[in-house]
């Protein structure tokens, strides 16, 4: 078992705290079926350049730190590039710190390993963390650049969608009663709501990401998307398979991880999305 990255420094009043969904992603991405898939998709030979891994909405950074710090174990190569994009600036800072900690831990372990000359030990190795960027989905990423996309979206069905930006500053010239500026508490509530509130069917944000997949992913690109039962996963998978630009093999969407028998109202699954080339 790979260690879960430490997130004790993350301010959970304004950044999503790692929960069952985060841990399902860790379990799925480190399962044999997925490490085998990633190794065959991005074989560590000169003809296969390092994959760019983008996590959208990393929050605390626990998943991105896991992927970066254990690159050798998960991808069978340690030259992967990783990037996080979150609408929440506090989440970006948290992610950068979480990744740095986890990478340092891996490097210390490797150094100790080498000192003790454990030739039989399992070699891990950290990848290259590019940074965390504040933004909306993959809008600021070059088209066709992403090889592995990971998204734990705001999937809870809600009546309304929270605003990405704070309300505009009140204009002093109007005769309207001045709009109150957002308090720190309101800001934190809005940022937390952005991490879980998914609007209709919990799918409003996820639907925008799915629509952008053909533009965002490289030809060899794949995506890991977390869904809950209320998102109507079978319909979502059908919609993904019908996306344009699938080539000869078409778009594939299969469930590769589930929260299994802990079937509460929030039953979770991870869908892997890719094209057969």
């Amino acid at each position, binding site marked *: 078992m790979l260690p879960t990255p430490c997130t004790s420094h993350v301010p959970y009043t304004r950044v999503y705290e790692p929960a069952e969904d985060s841990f399902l992603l860790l379990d799925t991405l480190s399962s044999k079926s997925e490490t085998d898939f990633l190794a065959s998709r991005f074989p560590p030979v*000169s003809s296969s*350049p*390092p994959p*760019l891994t983008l996590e959208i909405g990393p929050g605390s950074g626990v998943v991105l730190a896991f992927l970066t710090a254990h690159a050798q174990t998960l991808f069978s190569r340690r*030259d992967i*590039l990783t*990037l996080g*994009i979150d*609408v929440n*600036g506090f989440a*970006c*800072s948290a992610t*950068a710190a979480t990744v740095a900690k986890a990478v340092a831990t891996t490097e210390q372990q490797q150094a100790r390993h080498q000192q003790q000359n454990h030739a039989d030990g399992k070699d891990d190795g950290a990848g*290259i*963390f*590019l*940074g*965390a*960027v*504040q*933004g*909306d989905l993959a*809008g*600021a*990423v*070059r*088209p066709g*650049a992403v090889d592995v996309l990971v998204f734990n979206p705001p999937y809870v069905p809600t009546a309304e969608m929270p605003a*990405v*930006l704070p309300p505009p500053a009140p204009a002093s010239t109007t005769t309207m009663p001045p709009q109150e500026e957002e308090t720190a508490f309101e800001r934190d509530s809005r940022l937390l709501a952005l991490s879980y509130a998914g609007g209709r069917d919990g799918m409003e944000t996820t639907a925008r990401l799915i629509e952008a997949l053909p533009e965002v992913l490289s030809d060899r690109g794949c995506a890991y998307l977390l869904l809950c039962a209320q998102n109507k996963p079978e319909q979502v998978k059908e919609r993904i398979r019908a996306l344009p630009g699938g080539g000869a093999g078409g778009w594939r969407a299969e469930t590769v991880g589930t929260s299994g028998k802990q079937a509460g109202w929030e039953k979770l699954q991870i869908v892997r999305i890719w094209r057969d080339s």
Partner: protein
Amino acid sequence: MKVLTLNFLTCAVKTCKASSDSFPLHPKDAELASDDVELNPQLLVNLLPRIDWNALRTTSTELGFPQLPEQPPTAEELQADEKMLKDLHTLLMETQLMEGKLVCGHCGHEYAVREGIANFLLPSHLV
């Protein structure tokens, strides 16, 4: 964020995507920081085919780094060229963009960079 990140980012304004002027974004008033990273020649050789060389040349020059050659080195050339390895290592692996702005060459929009985090959220009139 690492300078290498600029090789993968573009203007977030939809109508800019089709224009070649929206990539790479141009750093302005940039403050840089340097991490101490051990040189790994094989890693740099692996990265070569993943890099848009023209864009990297532009970024490198705009940030005041030594001018990169017009053509990217081959894997063999890079392995044998200690100075080039060192220059690329400094630029790609060690240098962090901490403060400043990233400017789109097409629409002129400026994205702020604070404490190493670039903000690509657009004001509502540009979404």
